[in-house]
């Protein structure tokens, strides 16, 4: 009989640890993650049509193959400055509750897999700026990713 040594606590407790995939991206030098299931596509920055009298972080709407979707500057939404548009800026198109919208981010990193057990709930002590949209923090290796709760993100739109 073999004794398998493993660092993975989940195995030893006999539980199946769910792995969730997140798309990680950078905004103001922090790494954030959104559940990949909600990511519809990633675009290079496109021209945006302004919509009058909306919140300052809503840049406007754009035509995505016939569908009109709003674009939000995530950095501004986090109550900071506007995102600097560079060659690596991207717009992440998300789909949530059958609504599609885009987020402007500084850089899209990669898809990371995080074990559910590595996701922990945070309290106010972490990142004061974004805490009203971040509930969880995930760890993938050495990387700490702030996981965005889309419910909160949408409700504030």
């Amino acid at each position, binding site marked *: 009989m073999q004794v398998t040594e493993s660092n993975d606590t989940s195995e030893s407790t006999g539980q199946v640890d769910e792995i969730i995939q997140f798309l990680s991206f950078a905004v103001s030098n922090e790494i954030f993650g959104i559940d990949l299931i909600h990511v519809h596509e990633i675009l290079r920055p496109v*021209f945006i049509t302004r919509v*009058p009298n909306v919140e300052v972080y809503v840049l406007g709407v754009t035509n995505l193959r016939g569908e*009109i979707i709003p674009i939000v500057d995530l950095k501004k939404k986090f109550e900071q400055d506007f995102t600097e*548009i560079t060659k690596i800026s991207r717009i992440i198109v998300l789909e949530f509750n059958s609504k599609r919208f885009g987020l402007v981010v500084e850089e899209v990193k990669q898809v990371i897999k995080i074990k559910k057990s590595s996701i922990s709930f945070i309290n106010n002590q972490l990142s004061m700026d974004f805490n009203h949209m971040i509930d969880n923090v995930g760890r993938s290796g050495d990387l700490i990713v702030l996981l965005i709760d889309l419910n909160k993100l949408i409700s504030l739109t």
Partner: protein
Amino acid sequence: MAGILGEYTELFLEESEDQIEELNANLLKLESDHSNPDIINDIFRAAHSLKSSAAFVGLLNLSDLAHKMENLLQKIREDKLSVNVTLVNLLFECFDLIKVVIDAVGQGEKLDTTFPEMITKLQNYEKEGSVAGSTPPTKSTTSSSSPAPSTPVATPKPISKPVISEGLLHLDELEILDLDEEMRIRNASAIDIKVVLKENTQMKGSRYALMLELLKPSGVIFKTQPEEDDLLKGGEINELLLVYITQLDEEEINRIVHSDLVEEIKIETRSVSNTSASEFIPLNLDQDELAELEEEFKSRKGNVFDIRVVLKTDTPMKGLRFTLILQNIKQNSIIYKSNPDIEILERGTELNSLTFILLTDMSIEDVKKTISVDMVDYLNVEPRNLVSTAKPLSAHETSTPAHQENATSAKPSQTPSAPAPPKKEKPQAVAADKDDSKLTKSIKVSSEKLDQLMNNVGELVITNSGFQKIYDDLVRTFGDDTTLTELKGKIDQINRISKDLQSGIMNTRMVPIGSVFNRFSRLVRDLSMETHKKVQLILLGENTELDKKVVDMIGEPLLHLIRNSIDHGLETPEERAKTSKSDMGTVELNAYQGGNNIMVEIKDDGRGLNKGRILKKAIENGLVTQADAQNLSDNDIFQFIFAAGFSTAAEVTDISGRGVGMNVVNKLVQDFKGKILINSVEGQGATFTLCFPQALAIIPSILVSMEEEIYAFPLSEVFETIRVKKEQINTLEGHEIFNLRGEVLPIYRLNKIIGLSDKKDLEEFPVVIVNFNSRKLGFIVDDMIGKHETVIKTLEKNFRNIPGLTGASIMGDGTIILVLDIPGLIELTNVIKIDDTLEGIEMLRLNSSRSSDNTVTEKIYKTITSTNLYNSRLLEMVLSDKSRRKKDKSSERKKPIVIVHEKETEEEEIQEEITIESSIVEHDSSDTSSRIETEISQSEEPIEELGTTTMQEEPENSSEEDDDGRNQAKEMLKSFSEQTKQRVEAMIDRPIDQLLSNQEIRKLETVVNTGTMNAGLVLSQLVGSNVDLFMPEIALTDKDILVDLIRDPYEHFFGLKIRMNGDLNGNLLMIFSEEKGNELSNKLLKSNENSTLAKKLSDDNLSVLSEISNIVCASIINSLSNKAKVQIMPSVPELVSGTFREVLDAVKPEKTKFLSMNTEFVYDGDNLIGNLIFLPDFDELVQLIAKLN
């Protein structure tokens, strides 16, 4: 998707809602026409249907109630009960209760309460005959006039009590009735069971309960003694008696129930005799089936019979027998529907009765003969009355009696028509027949599917307009062409078809408003009773169709308005008499189409709106000041009634007066972009007209641009567009107004409302004048673009509704335009905090790529908004990418090194040059002059400053030198080389940003482009047909690179050299390969000579080419001098020929960099390329460029 009641919820809702409406409508009819058997039958049928559907979905108590109602109705049918107001009210009460349950189901709630009170009331009424005392006279009149049941009139046989034998368990009359019902529904027998358990059995109660459970799957426990609930309560239970309805036989039951503990079992089937006399209820058909049947009937003629065949109980193979019977009759008839279905019959059944509908030419007698085969116990053949019972009445007057007496005396014995032959034609019906069009087959389609279709068609229309634009571009590029004309034809065709498609699909969503109107008959009746006023309701235009959404919504506003009319508008009969009006007040509902709108009107002939009181109340409530009140029009005053909480009612009644209704009405109407118009004459009445735009998905609109943002005004709202001068605008109490041909209108600045900064110092601006609530107002915009048809997409799908916007629309080229909502905009002007601090700066124009003229990225004044900054930055990035890519394209192997703002590359370049500079270059040219030239050019400056013109002028002289000259030249050259060396050193230190920048090259390009275009024009004139010259791509190359481009080093070239003198000195060299040159000149000469093989060009060709070069160079020089306002004179062109290298050397570019421009000649579909080398003195060039602003 299963609803609250399971998978049939949706179906139940639809059917039962219809049935309740029908019941209500029919009962009303019955009230005015007491003895019409058809109406009674219809009511009965509906109630029966309701009962079974309720049972089917598990609403057993509702089913029960319906059943009790049925009993009452049955009595009416039998003339045992008279129709009077009390009864009618009772029934209405009943209907309302049923409606409550149905509505609850609609809301997702299963309301299965019992109705003990109602049921008691019903039962009491049944027993006592009437609650308030019936009027015998009525009874006699109705009974005398109702015809005896004879076959011509389609009344089923009067009911006689089903004779069910007594069983072990006693059942009372009602229970027997129910039992009979159950038996018939399930086509099963009633079996009495008695079970006695052994004395010492433990827990008898539970065991009995268990037995019942075992029986339940195969039948219905009709009644038990003791009651089921009591069984589990404990206590000594000696025996269990039950009546069980099942298709199982006694053997099987015995097996189920028997166990060791059973002492005694008695099983007895109740026999039901006289089934022949039991009520024959024909098959019930739903709307669609009925309609189908009528279609069939109409096309085939003949008769429709309801037939019931009952076989003797002990007949073997009943199923087979029935099948045979049906087969026999099918020979020359059609069996429309049967219960049980034919498939079941073929499989075999134990049921002994079959009901079906037959469409046949045969007479009743023949039918009976065919069916009466052996073993048939009973046969019932009834002609069916094909009347569209489900439809409510059309244009009719429902008089509602104010007093009871009128009901009976008003309608003396209304004898139904004498035996009308029902078989051949449709029997007469009291209910006015609907148009045949209403009976067309219909199919239920989910409105989601229709919405999706609408969406797709909208997209189609947008894409089509895209085609149109592409066509326009093609025409501009290629001119007229038969193929293009064909294309246009097809585009127009598709446009037409898609527009048709769109209106067709829109039509599918239209439903007639009649369904809503008819609900109000009941309301009017009730209200008139409550208010003790006589009211008659007139319905017009029920066929007018509106979008389903509107029809669904419009019920509520109409309800409020009718309530208002009756409660406040109409006077009591006494008051009316005083003003010499008839004592019966009229409320009229009308629907019609008016232009692009649908109007729904509620008109009453009451006392009208009291302007004075409204105004007074408005001032009281602070809605307007006393002063302003003077300026209000009648309509304005009337509009106050829509304000929340507004009411002039002296007292609040149950019905109205709280001031809520009108507000709700207004809001609902506005939600659908409709408006309410009020007309009233005091003392005569009031008319409220709800006006809705026909829900068009394609809205024609006027497009305006605000700082490159495009907005659309719906054309239906736009009254006019004009240009207004600054002086014409005045200010009155802080608001801007202006005078339009005598009319004073308020004027708003659209930029303020949408958050853009003001444009200062404008003398004149375009203004869009719109209609709003029958007033006009103007909006100042930046630019008017024109008319456009848009398909509006809602913003709510992915975002939310924005105040001031109806939605957005996508144009043919993909840009998004925002569609304005006028009322929303007005509201915004009152609400919004106008930001005066908005500023703007010059930003790059986004649409430059689209303008057909100059492609210079002009700047435009734009407000500083996050979006504008974003777009601007994005554009910068895109352009710089584009230009870099364009530069990369121009060479195959080595890329000509281009000056860009990349500091690294420039440094590299300088290094390169310095090394070249210092090396001694070997020449391949044997020409001594060229050697000198080489020396000179060796010391020419590196790329930072390209060769000086003075230097190049020298070689001219030296080439003609004689010996003396040579010495002189040597001297001069030496000094020159010293000078240049110094300059070179100076050059190296020159900071990089003084090099020819991207921008400068850009500018140069533009200017040169103008030149080439002009050249093209001239050439075209010369040649007599279109010659286009395209903008040279200016690149910095050096000789080697250019030479490398030429594949064949021995290929013959020639060039035209033109010198420039004046403020800019230098050379222009136009090089053509022989091949190309021949081609070009031949083309232009339209010569057929195939002189491409000739090495030497013909004189003609040469002159053509030199002419071309002349023109091109001259044009460019001209352009330069004009733009920079300097003087440059071209010299006479000089022809040089040889290999490429040789030709190039004519202008001595050597190893330094120079500007090379590739010019494309486009002629007759061919593109021919010539190369123009531009070698000005670069110092001078830089200066000149600076002047090019």
